[in-house]
């Protein structure tokens, strides 16, 4: 793999930023009345968002789901807008209409986020169809979980995308759990990537904790899509280090399993590699961390100080 230094640094940076972002929320969401609703974090899965988005250009589109923070930050979303939205504030990227579950950032081409499991897939098909229709040199990435791959919408979307050879990359973030269900409790198929064959589509298995591997696979899938060779199903094997949401005590996730995966954490894995290969030094790593820390702190401050929307703003934005 011959990945540009800058890309490697970028991946490390967005992973660190994403992790700091999550870590801050772990604390904040436990403070009574601070953050409404559920809190769903992507701790441990950052390599998927960072690796995939590093392979994308600004014009490429991502369609994401309930576990979106790492995708959006890696695609370049403003942490302040996200944080304020998570706090349900008026200054949030969606004016408090969304909250944390459907964070939508059209500014970075993340225009349709949905918390309906499996729903990202047909929408991504439509978004990629538009790219094909207008002959845009861009692709659509669709993020979804292993649980989502059991929804009917997965099937219809992959069939149509393959049939029309649309420029879409289906990224299945297999974190071994769907809610409280372990992977093998919700399907018998060993690898989700296997399902690609049901549509005559390439299916690829990637180590989802290895950002450069994810990047490489996404880059190739993107090129195939741009070359008119259609969609790819990319299964990124990773692990949900925290609960489904922050209120989930994870009683059904074996402690050793969590520990084992924590040891495979994608961030030290990449940072060690980059230090070993001289792409960054440990001072630079520390700087990244403190910069991320201060960006997140600034975002939290911004969110905390921002006002809530006025009640009657609820009536806005229903129709154009």
């Amino acid at each position, binding site marked *: 793999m011959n990945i540009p230094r800058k890309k490697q640094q970028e991946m490390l940076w967005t992973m660190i930023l994403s992790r700091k972002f999550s870590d801050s929320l772990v604390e904040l969401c436990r403070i009574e009345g601070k953050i409404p609703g559920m809190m769903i974090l992507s701790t441990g899965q950052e390599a998927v968002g960072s690796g995939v988005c590093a392979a994308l250009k600004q014009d490429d589109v991502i369609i994401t789901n309930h576990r979106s923070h790492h995708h959006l930050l890696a695609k370049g979303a403003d942490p302040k807008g996200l944080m304020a939205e998570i706090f349900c504030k008026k200054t949030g990227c969606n004016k408090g209409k969304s909250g944390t579950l459907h964070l*939508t950032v059209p500014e970075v081409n993340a225009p349709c986020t*949905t918390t309906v499991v499996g729903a990202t*897939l047909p*929408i*991504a*098909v439509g978004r990629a169809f538009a790219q094909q229709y207008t002959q845009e040199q861009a692709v659509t990435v669709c993020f979804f979980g292993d649980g989502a791959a059991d929804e009917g919408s997965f099937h219809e979307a992959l069939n149509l995308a393959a049939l*029309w050879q649309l420029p879409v990359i289906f990224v299945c973030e297999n974190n071994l759990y769907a809610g409280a269900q372990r992977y093998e409790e919700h399907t018998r198929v060993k690898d989700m990537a296997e399902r690609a064959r049901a549509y005559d589509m390439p299916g690829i298995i990637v180590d989802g904790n290895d950002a450069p591997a994810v990047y490489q696979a996404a880059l190739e899938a993107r090129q195939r899509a741009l070359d008119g060779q259609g969609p790819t199903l990319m299964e990124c094997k990773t692990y949900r280090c925290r609960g489904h949401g922050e209120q989930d005590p994870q009683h059904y996730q074996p402690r050793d399993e969590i520990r084992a995966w924590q040891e495979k954490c994608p961030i030290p894995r990449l940072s060690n590699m980059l230090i070993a290969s001289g792409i960054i030094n440990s001072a630079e790593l520390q700087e990244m961390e403190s910069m991320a820390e201060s960006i997140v702190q600034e975002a939290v401050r911004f969110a905390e100080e921002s006002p809530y929307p006025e009640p009657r703003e609820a009536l806005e934005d*229903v129709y154009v």
Partner: protein
Amino acid sequence: MQKLGMGQAVNQALKEEMQRDPNVFIAGEGVGVSIHVNPMFPTHGLLEEFGPGRVKDTPVSEAAIAGLAVGAAEAGLKPVVEIMFNPFFTLASDMIVNHAAKLRYLSGGKSSFPLVVRIKSGAGFGAGCQHSHNLEAWTAHCPGLKVVMPATAADAKGLLKSAIRDDNPVIFIEHMGLYFAPMPVPEQEYLTPLGQADIKRQGRDLTVVTWSGMLGVAMGAAEKLSQEGIEMEIVDLRTLTPLDRETILTSVEKTGRLIVLHEATRTGGFGGEIAAVVMEEGFRYLKAPLRRVTGPDIPVPASPPLEKFYIPDQNDLIKAAREIM
């Protein structure tokens, strides 16, 4: 003036809009190559004129068809997708109700979804309840959607053109019973605005609010009652949401009496909404109880006498009118 069935009027609207705007495309099951070769059908000949790039036959995959519309609309295209029969809307309903209708709101007004979902509906062709089930009340209960149900070919053309140009998701429900009876349709280009009901017949004694396939029943009954000296005013809603309350209320103010006539089953039908609006805002006008003339609360049966029993007819309406005069 040209005479067209409603299917042909829809066809003309689609053609004109596709010629006008290269971003308009159509998709659905059999919208290109079809098992029907009948020119009375709405998508007849479009594949030949616009090619397979813009007339997209899809697999039997309603969720994907609807998702296609949602995603493509966000990108600025103008999808017009078809759900073959109203009951199959269920399969597309997550994409339409939870996504087309809500994603703009969820984005804080940043994204928009200018799509049209055409749905074929209506009883009367002996296919039974899995093909015939009028579900307009479902979509009319979903903020973020507009719901259009034309009763004439001319309205269908003008309303569909407006729907395609509207930047919101529009549900456009066509009664198949109207495909086959030619009706006058203006030749020149015109748009019929969404959200405006149309008084299809003036009358002083009784207001009938109706839409879609039932307009013909209302007009026929009105002629007959006129001979007895009862003059019904027929309000054709055309658009269920946004609802034109003003036209309804003005009419009831004049007549003091209200009948709602729809083909859908009674309980939970959109007739209730009309009743509620009048009872809220026009209570003092009312001289008599409401009557709803609707399909009974049963699935649509296949056998001709049963299906005929299901579909409200002129006699049902006349009987209801006499009851409250």
